[in-house]
């Protein structure tokens, strides 16, 4: 094992910020593309503009907050069963 800390592309905060910037741009592109896609949903709300984006975002945020609540409920010390 090497003890010396290697520097890679992802170590510099500038590059990390750049990756995030491309990520946000790709989100915008997805929202723009949706204008031009023909829609054939099984449910009416599926065809509403941005349904999947909103559902994905809200779903994941609520996932995290419910998981935090769950942790409060089920978390025990690591040697609980010993």
């Amino acid at each position, binding site marked *: 094992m090497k003890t010396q800390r290697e520097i*890679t592309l992802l170590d510099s905060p500038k590059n990390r910020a750049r990756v995030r910037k491309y990520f946000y741009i790709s989100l915008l592109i997805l929202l723009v593309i*949706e204008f031009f*896609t023909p829609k054939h*949903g099984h*449910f009416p709300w599926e065809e509403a503009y941005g349904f*999947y984006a909103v559902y994905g975002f809200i779903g994941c945020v609520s996932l*995290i907050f*419910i998981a935090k609540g769950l942790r409060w409920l089920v*978390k025990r010390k690591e040697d609980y069963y010993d």
Partner: protein
Amino acid sequence: MIKTVPPAAILIAGALLVPFLKGRLKKAYLLVLPTLAFLNLLYMPAGRYWIVEFLSYDLIFGRVDKLSMAFGYVFVLITFIGILYALNIKDDSQHMASLMYAGGALGVTFAGDLFSLYIFWEILAIASVFLILARKISTSSAAAFRYFTWHFFGGLCLLAGIILYVMNRGTPEFAYIGLNDGASILIFTGFCLNAAVFPLHAWLPDAYPRATVTGAVFMSALTTKSAVYILARTFPGTELLIWAGAFMTCFPIFYAVIVNDIRRVLAYSLINQVGFMVCGIGIGTQLAINGVVAHAFSHIIYKALLFMSTGAVLHMTGRIRATDLGGLHKTMPFTAICCMIGAASISAFPLFSGFVSKSMTVAAAAEEHLTIIWLMLMFASAGVFHHAGIKVPFFVFFGHDSGIRAKEPPINMRLAMGIAAFICIFLGIYPQPLYRILPHAVHYVPYTAFHVVGMLQLLMFGALAFTVLVLSGYYPPEMRAVNLDTDWFARVAGRKFIWFCNSPLKRIGVFIKGCVSRIVGQLKTVPDRSVILENGTDSFFHSGLTSLPNLLFVWGRHLRTEIKQLSWNLAYILMPFFALLALMLLWLS
């Protein structure tokens, strides 16, 4: 016409020869076995054959149709990949257990009657215990015992159900069973336990993270998916399974967010993915069943890939907790890429295998207008990307730098990961070979602009939620902890029971004994008939009742000693099953 044999026989009989071979010859032999089984599959015609009359019942070792063939192919494929991945392991018992385990799964797949199904079912369960035991640390042998107890319970339910079923119908042959009487409920319970249906799932996240690096790859592929196969055959269209499956897709993702052990995160996401399949079985339409089989196929490959890449990290660093890892992409770039391909596949990103298979089940739910189910499945799709797609690669290979500088794993492990990663991408781009082996004709088109854009939005905005929450500090930090699950009831109740036997029950016994002695002492002054009465009560209270707590205490201590010899005991249990199987196969020839 080329003569074929039951594919299970190749792997199970082949496993027995492993300890007699050495060096390169053994490695070659291990790889030849699944290859041989695959060639054998190719020449097996559709139909029912290898029928053995055993104790006046017809046992069918070969029920070959499109459904069993699809599962047969993927089980053999993953056996090859898993063996390749494990090739550098020097432990013979692990190789033997993996081969027998795979043999058991193939036996279940092609069994046409309930008796042979049961025998392979138990071989599958017992052989897999050895893959946990082989880790050789105390936590894993305890977990192996719990795993075995769960499956023993499931196996007994199944056996009881089978006996009732055969008594009712007079034949062990089965096809569609359906949930209608006591026998079918027992059989259903046995199958559901192996499919990790809530609340019978707790063995899975308990045992899989404690299995060996290579054993977990087999376990992730075989037990739950053979149960999915058998449920798809016997209980399609059972409404209960729709809700059970949808619930299975949702609840594990909350656990996966807070769990620290990376392989436990994968175990919870495995339950989530099997939930999609169980839900599809419940819907039971042609599209849904196609979705189940396709998803089982691609799931086995990408889940194995995820277990292989995280296993490689465990193998090289000895650590697997998210709190201990991070920044490994610097020295393990190949493993990191494989892990991300697996993560993209499980999240159903377009151009990866999960996309072309999972969407069939979701579309089947939409076609049946199951609104709430559809919303649950969509939520689970976003959630699975969140924990398996982002959390696993992020905390292991990126995230904060842990300072660990581990090398890439050995060449055979890299090769196995490479093959699995290739299949993930290949099926994602060109799903036709997969669609061709499905049980019903496929009219489903995965790549429509709407579907691709919708799925990408769902996933990417889920990723946005992750980014926002991590940057703002709301994301729950990784911490070392035990998270309770439904096995709490079994584990704590079990311990309470032992305590109850050791302490209050014993005291009650002593108290009763004292009372009886006192009463009897007074009665002794009255002659004749009272002496007979006394002798009767005496023997009941002295040796009958009071020995019960003692008996339980001794039994508990005995159990504890037996657990220490678990592998021998299991081998003894396994032997009669093999003997029975050999006997049946001898009848065949």
